[in-house]
């Protein structure tokens, strides 16, 4: 480790930043230090997308480009990466020209007040750069599902992608960016100190484990999609930080004898891709968990460690019998995820300990898995209720039942009474009906801004009914419905 400036590729060169607080956000840096005001602040909490920028990282030999919310990125998190903002696009197309996406947005009347537009441009740009063929309408919609527009109603923004594809293609000069990333990779570990604050970004698991033991009070920072809010909204002081973004082992995802192992700082985007591959029933939650800029920055380990009762990954993972691999110095221990939560926003983590990985055992034969999120909005909303069901069915009977909910208690929690009632019973309407009655009473959720307790209880039970009806071939899905002709 050594004290050095934060280094990142920006505007075609390696930029070095010193003298700014490590909790200064990328958005503040752009607007207030660089006077690059194309990137806007709409909410400063990662929910509107007006501040969307694109981050470049080297993955293997390739340049990976992903959209993130600049309002929730601390400056040191840029270290070793490349930053692209809306101002970078038109120059790619040559003097006096607009980038094809920008031109298509102009031609298609896709901006009205224009304040959200740079954010949309960047979300679309990440998709444009990452696809060899014109993206489908669905993938365009997913790409901009974290961008709010209050004026247009979105239609012309979606239409801009195929229109841009019809124009001559332009792109980032990747070789130069990769060379800059390689140059920065040779820099020593970042140890950034300003006043009473520090941000240390270990480069290996061992380095992290040692640093964590030495700094048990330090705040672990992975994607900062939650910690960022402590700074922008709660104005909480944060002193020492350990950044997890530069530890390769923590980002690794692999199968180990059928067990899926996901490193704690794998992005939600990467983790969910692996989860959908492992269990296709994960697809619903993968699409509806936040939006790409949050999934690109946020990590699975962060979502688990944050221990929110409404975190959307936990119910499904608990139902899938996941366990967390915890590390403290050299010591490793495994804890079932359901036991990891000890109270409201409380976990079993000891001082100096951190989540190294999440492990999912191989699926038993005949497992029926569904995970459903109920919210007021399809895109980027917090769950009112999130319900996950993993039933193992054999000979028409319930062999094993793991049912878990978010939004129903102070922690993500299983429904043991309902599970016990189902266990060994014939999988039929009467059984489901009995189980629903029990399930509706098994939790004592709260009334809050998202829904009443009565709604939550009723819906928890109805999700079990949905599972049964769907398995029985009754249409229960609103997705993919066509209008009548």
């Amino acid at each position: 480790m050594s004290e050095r400036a934060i280094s990142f590729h920006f505007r075609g060169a390696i930029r070095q930043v010193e003298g700014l607080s490590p909790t200064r956000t990328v958005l503040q840096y752009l607007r207030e230090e660089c006077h690059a005001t194309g990137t806007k602040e709409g909410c400063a909490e990662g929910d509107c997308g007006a501040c969307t920028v694109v981050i470049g990282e080297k993955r293997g030999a390739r340049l990976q480009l992903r959209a993130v919310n600049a309002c929730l990125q601390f400056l040191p998190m840029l270290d070793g990466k490349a930053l692209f903002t809306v101002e970078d696009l038109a120059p790619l197309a040559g003097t006096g020209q607009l980038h094809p996406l920008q031109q298509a947005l102009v031609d298609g009347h896709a901006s009205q007040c224009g304040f959200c537009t740079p954010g949309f441009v960047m979300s679309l740009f990440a998709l444009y750069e990452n696809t060899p063929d014109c993206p489908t309408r669905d993938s365009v919609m997913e790409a901009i599902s974290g961008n709010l527009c209050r004026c247009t109603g979105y239609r012309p923004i979606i239409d801009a992608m195929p229109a841009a594809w019809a124009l001559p293609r332009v792109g980032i000069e990747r070789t130069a960016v990769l060379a800059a990333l390689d140059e920065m990779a040779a820099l020593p570990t970042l140890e950034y100190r300003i006043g009473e604050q520090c941000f240390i970004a270990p480069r290996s698991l061992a380095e992290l484990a040692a640093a964590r033991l030495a700094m048990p009070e330090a705040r672990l920072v992975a994607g900062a999609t939650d910690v960022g809010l402590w700074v922008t909204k709660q104005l909480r002081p944060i002193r020492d930080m350990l950044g997890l973004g530069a530890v390769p082992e923590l980002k690794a995802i692999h199968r180990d004898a059928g067990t899926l192992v996901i490193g704690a700082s794998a992005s939600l985007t990467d983790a969910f891709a692996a989860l959908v591959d492992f269990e296709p029933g994960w697809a619903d939650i993968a699409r509806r968990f936040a939006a790409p800029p949050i999934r690109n920055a946020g990590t699975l380990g962060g979502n688990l460690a944050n221990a929110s009762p409404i975190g959307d990954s936990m119910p499904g993972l608990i139902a899938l019998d996941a366990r967390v691999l915890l590390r403290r110095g050299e010591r490793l221990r495994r804890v079932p995820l359901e036991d990891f939560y000890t109270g409201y926003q409380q976990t079993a983590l000891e001082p100096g300990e951190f989540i190294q990985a999440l492990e999912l055992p191989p699926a038993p034969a005949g497992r029926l898995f569904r995970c459903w999120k109920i919210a007021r909005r399809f895109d980027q909303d917090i769950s009112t209720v999130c319900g996950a069901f993993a039933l193992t069915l054999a000979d028409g009977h319930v062999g094993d039942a793991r049912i878990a909910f978010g939004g129903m208690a102070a922690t993500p929690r299983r429904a043991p009474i309902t599970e016990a009632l189902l266990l060994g019973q014939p999988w039929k309407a009467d059984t489901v009906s009995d189980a629903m009655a029990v399930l509706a009473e098994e939790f004592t959720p709260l009334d809050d801004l998202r829904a009443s307790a009565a709604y939550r209880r009723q819906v928890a039970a109805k999700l079990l009914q949905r599972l049964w009806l769907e398995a029985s071939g009754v249409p229960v899905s609103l997705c993919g419905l066509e209008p009548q002709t």
Partner: protein
Amino acid sequence: MNTTPPPVGAALPHESAHLHVTGEAAYTDDLPEPAGTLHAAPGLSSVAHGRIVSLDLSAVRAAPGVRAVIVAADIPGDNNCGAAVHDDPILADGEVSFHGQPLFAVAADTRDQARHAARLAQVEIEAWPALLTVEDALAADSHVLPPVDISRGDVAAALASAPHRLAGTLHLGGQEHFYLEGQVSLAIPREDDSLHLVSSTQHPTEIQHIVAHALGWRMHQVSCECRRMGGGFGGKESQAAQWACIAAVLARRTGKPVKMRLDRDDDMRATGKRHDFRIEYEAGFDAAGRIIGLKLLLASRCGFSADLSGPINDRAVFHADNAYYLDTVAIRSLRCRTHTVSNTAFRGFGGPQGMFAIESVIDDITRHLQLDPLAVRRANFYDAPPRNTTPYGMTVEDNVIAPLVSQLALDAGYAPRRAAIAAFNAASPVIKRGIALTPVKFGISFTATFFNQAGALVHVYKDGTVQVSHGGTEMGQGLHTKIRQIVAGEFGLPVADVRLSATDTRQVPNTSATAASSGTDLNGKAAQAACRTICQRLAAFVAGRLGSDAGQVGFADGQVRAPGFNRPFAQVVADAYRARVQLWDAGFYATPKIHFDPTTLRGRPFYYFAYGAAVSEVAIDTLTGEHRVLRVDILHDAGRPINPAIDIGQIEGGFMQGLGWLTCEELVFGADGRLLTHAPSTYKIPAVSNLPPVFNVRLFDNANREDAIHRSKAVGEPPLMLALSVFFALRDAVAAALEPGARPQLDAPATPEAILRALNGGTLT
């Protein structure tokens, strides 16, 4: 002159589109800050109602970077930012009236320092009982303004004689504007006791006026400009003033420029929203569903002060007929005072709530009679005399609702799809579909007649290029784009030769708010008038040289032409300049024909009506109450469009905003009066997946019969109400799951919980 000179009528891009997409378009917070600019933050109340016992700001003053802290007593002039009634303190003085009310403000070297410092205040407030809901206020007989009644005929007798009668109560939620750019003002002290403001405001003149009063100054000491807003929607009509005042007072106190930009959460807590309503009705009708008598109560939550609640509630009354003739009717409007933020203008300005009321009544009638809702709507449409006068005595002269609806119903396949949906529902136990066609008739003009005036200033420079200033503000609606096309059309120039300047009280004075959908109608006519004065001078100049008649001189294709004369505009202008012809002028416009007597509530408040209709198909999940909108067809009357692409954008965007209001946007207040949905994490405006997968939007061919600018019609607000079709399609889907004849008890917004409650007969317990 009824011809539309090009580029009027062309689908040109927004005049700032190329700046929006590159990030070059500068909003107030993007402008380079003058040296020494300080940043302000407010300290907000955490009590809904009470007396300030002590406000200890010593820690705030001692915080790093702090340069000034102000409370009510530090305001040199009038501590008021109320637009209509003098009841809106800039900073709370002695008494606190809502949770989130500004108590003090701090200016510091950086915005972070100001925000941190503002949280260090030691505030003691003696809490008093708070009225939070319409029901609370009704029980306490608490009102910001007196009730308003409009009636025609003997309603009691009509109800008594009607073959069928229904009564009902409806709850309709409010709506946060969620302009993407929050409230922001920059106040810059200038020489000789004057001050300039750059503000994100729909009403620069009012900012000038209120800031002058707050400083104890006169209007010529204050100026205000706005190049563009990142959205307004009514939220920056009256409520941009408070933040401009705070910035101005701090600027005067420190002698330094002060920027006041609200954090999103503070913005949502401290600024007003669309009024939520409690609606009660009693309706009498015949077997065809034709309304014979209607008694309607519209009670709205105005919040702690009047703000624009008077005209907003008036407009709710004026739209409680929507497109329907109400023969015998009594409408009572109550303007409830609560200890919540003062609700304000929001696209539609009460109209949507009035229309929601009558559409609900009609829908209940159709459920009760088990008729096709469209047939009942048609039976009630405004028609030939005598069924063509509104409850406020205005004759509907331009009615096109019947042919418009017929064309839409045919294009959208309403009847066959309704039959197909019934068949689907009969076979689908969990998923139920619904369809609805709802009309819109929306009155265009400020109901306060004197606001219907506008000015413009047009400069032709000696190289033949043109700069236009006018009183309207650009908030994304494309006003400047349309004005540019109008001006280019008058001079026969390409739009590239015409530029719009920032709206500035130093260029055009005494302007009205850019509101009531009136921006193009008013300012377009004013700009046209200025252009025509200049063209007349140029024509006279050319005719004088030719010895011909000025009436034969024309302006088109960048040329000035007369018999035997054809020269570039720029050359004629250069010659005219040398001949000392005045090449700039001002134009003024006052809307004709309108009049309204606020004491008798009779007259012609509107110059004309804009019409539209929409068909929406939805599906609901009867297990969870979730829904999806599957298809929407819209036919809308924008008159003869000045820019059809911009009008389509207003229709699509307005519809989606209305869809949000009625489905996913829910304002939730805690028992202590605190707004719990104070950020986009908890307050959900439509996102991209809310876009209907099939969305057909067309313009109805219907030149304005009144002499509006180029026979166009205002299009800013009316399309929002097209989204009522989504709500009534949801009601239709709920009805499909209920017993025939049952009326769905569906509150708005139709959240999953509201839909599930309606499916359960109005309760979840």
